[in-house]
């Protein structure tokens, strides 16, 4: 086996691609990365996808011109053309050129597996190879003067996804040690994508693909670039990118435009690659959405948010109800799309993914990205076997199997530094939460599969990663790069602070924000203030906003109507205030999480509020302050102090299946009906207590057995 990694993009030549892959796999003396259907090259005559490109430290860059069948055509001209164009593209990268010479050598080979005697037709300098002669042809290529660094630079240039992430606007800094200057350096370093992200962009799967990743691992950008890549490859495909918060729409369009311009030199055709809401409503292109389109195409009754909330018992189940009803009623939905990419899938019910699946043409290219811990709705997404249902023989319609191309995990985290990410995980899972009375664990929730911890980039330090065992987990330098945390002291990166009252907290916050914009050289849009509970964000953030306003500091609340899908208004300096929903998919250098005490409740809904805290903390690119007051904040502070004492490692006993089940029940979110029933029962208990206190009911009035059982149950 050789050491070549394959990144399988799309080139419409499946047979030759497969044979080339097999042939290259057998070569022992070659390593590197081989891209299929990549890179794309923009020229004055239009755009161009190279059938296959091998980047190898031994051979340099080898372009493959694939031929299926025996008709070679004018392959010499094709080889010249491809090589010239790629050379022109690489010459734009200064680091690959010395004087006027391009450092990595570029070779071209026509790979035609159906030709029997390629040596006979090979002209000078224009090699033709089949499976058997590939080794001989490649052995003629050598990269003189190769180095690891040069190889890496060449690879980056070929992937060329690097420039797309770059920041939106410039920042002015005067002091090299100000927060603004620190942020500028950080932004420059994270402008590049890593290899795994690039692979996820390019690798195309015929069927369902799942992309999992931590907050800040780049799911959104991967989805956007993937849509753009498919669009450039197949301009006639109908592709949808869909999500549930308007605030993401602008980002998607920006990324897709940047990719298309860089890769194909053309603006995307927005009638083909559509960035649309999951729900949608009548009123033109801008308001369109997947569910609305489904209703239109099938003639089903369309529900808007209000009518669905009324029809399906509450706003939490509104969209699920609407999708389920539409799917049930439409017997034979039309195939409307060639590919659909769903972001933030953890917030959708399975019915929406099924609806997407239903309107896809075979082979049903559905890509969905999700992060279990950012689930804010309370119900988590089941495995694909359960989401998409079974065929007539009872076999699941979709199964990802063990194929890493179908089930991509992005484990590197670029947004959050190690201390921030581990803090978010520790609090999200309640790793150092004190066990409630009578409970063996303080954990709030836990992955069902222990192995997932390693997949998301943790390393086992001590113990065993098994159910029922003690385990100590830590981030690695690989998955949480050091440079993300070296900019400031850890004590400055994450701060938990407790106040005596909300008013005191708010006053502190106003002072901090003033300092950030006046002394720290932070821009207004470097700051987000998040109140974790969406239901009360408006009223609770109001006083802070008013105080800042009175001091002349412009700020806004990210509302439902964040105009033109701009979350941060770059042209008008303004500090962003938001509830958790509108914070999603966004990031900033300085994040304030206020009234954090509300993320420590007991019993039902605890997992949900901890996920809010997790999501809020992971918005931070550089610094985060978690503030609040009261006993809830005290407990969170203690959890954080424990984490610090453990050097930002997660030290806990992995729950057994029995404990896992219990956690799921105890901390799950309740449906509105369940919540109502629970409230009624609590009310009855309160009444009993009141009666006892007032002496309207004496303990002796209860029969001995009841009394005894009550005492026993309550003292558990």
């Amino acid at each position: 086996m050789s050491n070549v990694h394959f990144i399988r993009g799309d080139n419409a030549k499946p047979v030759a691609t497969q044979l080339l892959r097999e042939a290259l796999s057998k070569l022992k003396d070659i390593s590197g990365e081989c891209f299929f259907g990549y890179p794309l090259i923009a020229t004055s005559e239009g755009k161009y996808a190279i059938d296959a490109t091998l980047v190898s430290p031994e051979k340099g860059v080898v372009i493959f011109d694939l031929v299926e069948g025996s008709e070679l055509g004018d392959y010499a001209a094709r080889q010249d053309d491809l090589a010239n164009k790629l050379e022109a593209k690489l010459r734009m990268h200064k680091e690959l050129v010395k004087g006027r010479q391009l450092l990595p050598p570029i070779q071209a080979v026509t790979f035609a597996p159906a030709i029997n005697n390629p040596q006979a037709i090979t002209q000078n300098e224009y090699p033709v190879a089949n499976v058997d002669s590939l080794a001989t042809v490649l052995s003629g290529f050598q990269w003189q003067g190769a180095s690891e660094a040069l190889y890496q630079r060449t690879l980056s240039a070929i992937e060329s996804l690097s420039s797309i992430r770059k920041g939106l606007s410039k920042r002015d800094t005067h002091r090299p040690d100000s927060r603004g200057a620190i942020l500028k350096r950080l932004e420059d370093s994270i402008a590049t994508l890593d290899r795994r992200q690039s692979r996820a962009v390019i690798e195309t799967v015929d069927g369902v693909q799942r992309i999992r990743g931590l907050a800040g691992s780049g799911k959104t950008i991967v989805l956007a670039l993937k849509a753009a890549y498919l669009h450039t490859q197949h301009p006639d495909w109908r592709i949808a990118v869909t999500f549930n918060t308007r605030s993401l729409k602008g980002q998607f369009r920006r990324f897709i435009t940047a990719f298309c311009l860089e890769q194909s030199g053309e603006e995307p055709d927005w009638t083909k690659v559509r960035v649309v809401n999951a729900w949608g409503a009548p009123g033109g292109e801008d308001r369109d959405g997947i569910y609305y389109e489904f209703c239109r195409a099938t003639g089903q009754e369309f529900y808007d948010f209000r009518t669905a909330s009324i029809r399906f018992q509450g706003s939490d189940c509104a969209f699920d109800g609407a999708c389920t009803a539409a799917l049930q009623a439409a017997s034979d939905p039309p195939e409307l799309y060639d590919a659909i990419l769903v972001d933030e899938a953890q917030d959708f019910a399975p019915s929406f993914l099924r609806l997407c699946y239903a309107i896809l043409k075979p082979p049903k290219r559905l890509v969905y990205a999700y992060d279990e811990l950012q689930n804010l709705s309370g119900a988590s997404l089941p495995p694909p076997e359960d989401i998409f249902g079974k065929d007539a023989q009872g076999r699941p319609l979709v199964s990802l199997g063990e194929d890493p191309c179908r089930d991509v995990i992005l484990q590197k985290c670029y947004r959050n530094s190690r201390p921030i990410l581990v803090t978010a995980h520790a609090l999200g899972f309640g790793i150092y939460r004190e066990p409630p009375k009578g409970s063996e664990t303080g954990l709030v929730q836990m992955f069902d599969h222990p192995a997932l911890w390693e997949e998301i980039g943790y390393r086992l330090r001590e113990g065993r990663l098994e159910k029922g065992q003690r385990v100590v987990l830590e981030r690695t330098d690989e998955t949480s790069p050091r440079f993300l945390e070296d900019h400031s002291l850890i004590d400055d990166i994450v701060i938990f602070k407790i106040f005596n009252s909300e008013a005191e907290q708010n006053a502190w916050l106003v002072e901090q924000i003033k300092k950030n914009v006046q002394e720290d050289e932070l821009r207004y849009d470097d700051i987000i203030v998040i109140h974790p509970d969406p239901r009360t964000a408006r009223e609770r953030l109001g006083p802070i906003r008013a105080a800042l306003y009175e001091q002349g500091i412009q700020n806004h609340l990210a509302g439902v109507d964040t105009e033109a899908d701009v979350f941060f208004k770059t042209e008008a300096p303004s500090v962003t205030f938001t509830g958790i929903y509108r914070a999603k998919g966004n990031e900033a250098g300085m994040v304030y999480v206020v009234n954090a005490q509300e993320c420590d409740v007991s019993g039902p809904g605890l997992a949900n509020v901890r996920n809010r805290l997790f999501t809020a903390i992971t918005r931070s690119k550089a610094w985060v302050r978690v503030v609040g007051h009261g006993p809830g904040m005290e407990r969170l502070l203690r959890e954080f102090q424990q984490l610090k004492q453990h050097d930002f490692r997660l030290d806990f006993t992995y729950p057994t299946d029995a404990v896992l089940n219990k956690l799921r029940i105890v901390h799950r979110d309740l449906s509105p009906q369940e919540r109502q029933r629970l409230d009624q029962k609590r009310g009855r208990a309160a009444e009993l207590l009141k009666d006892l206190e007032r002496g309207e009911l004496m303990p002796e009035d209860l029969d001995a057995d009841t009394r005894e059982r009550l005492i026993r149950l309550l003292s558990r």
Partner: protein
Amino acid sequence: MPPREARLIKEDLERLLASLIERGIVDDQNFPLLRQVGREAYEITFEGAEHVAVGMGDDVDYDKMYHDLAGRRCFSAKLIDGGLLQLMYSFKGGHLTKHRLAYYPSPDLSPFREDPESYLHDALFLDIVSRRIVPFPLRFDFDESAARDVHHPRCHLTLGDAKGCRIPVSAPLTPRWFIEFVLRHFYQTPQLDLVSALPAHKHNFAATITANESKLIHVVVPQAAIT
């Protein structure tokens, strides 16, 4: 030094905005500016006001007009359901010569009152509205120089930008009266009392309606008790 009346009006507006921000009814805003524009001439305006003319074109679709105004941040305040408030006053020689007080509701979102719960709780899919709303802007204009008895009352109310719609108004409106008018008629609900929490009145303008105009159906601005 700007005239006392101008300073009072600016302070009134600032206090009102702070109070609406605090209540979470205003999502975004521009600071009121008081500046000298000529000899003894002052105006109260806001940053972004230079684009206010896009809201005055005759042949512009309301949808486009609204989005232009919102996109350029041409407003004194943006309300919870996307409604825009614009307040501008001009003074010359120490007294009011013009005002333009406008309210532009959002053409895309359902009005606040249809679903106040979802708005206050920031429901995720609030923007999914199927019914096309028929929103109409309204404006209280005051203009001394353009006034003609009955045909162009000094202070008048224009509904839906309809040409020639100038319902006589008895006196110019302070920011306090204008904002109360909008809140009371478009935002107040039985559960949510926005109006009585507004800061107290600080100023009254003298009546400007003519005898002939007051014989027509007209709007009366009451004299408020000043605290």
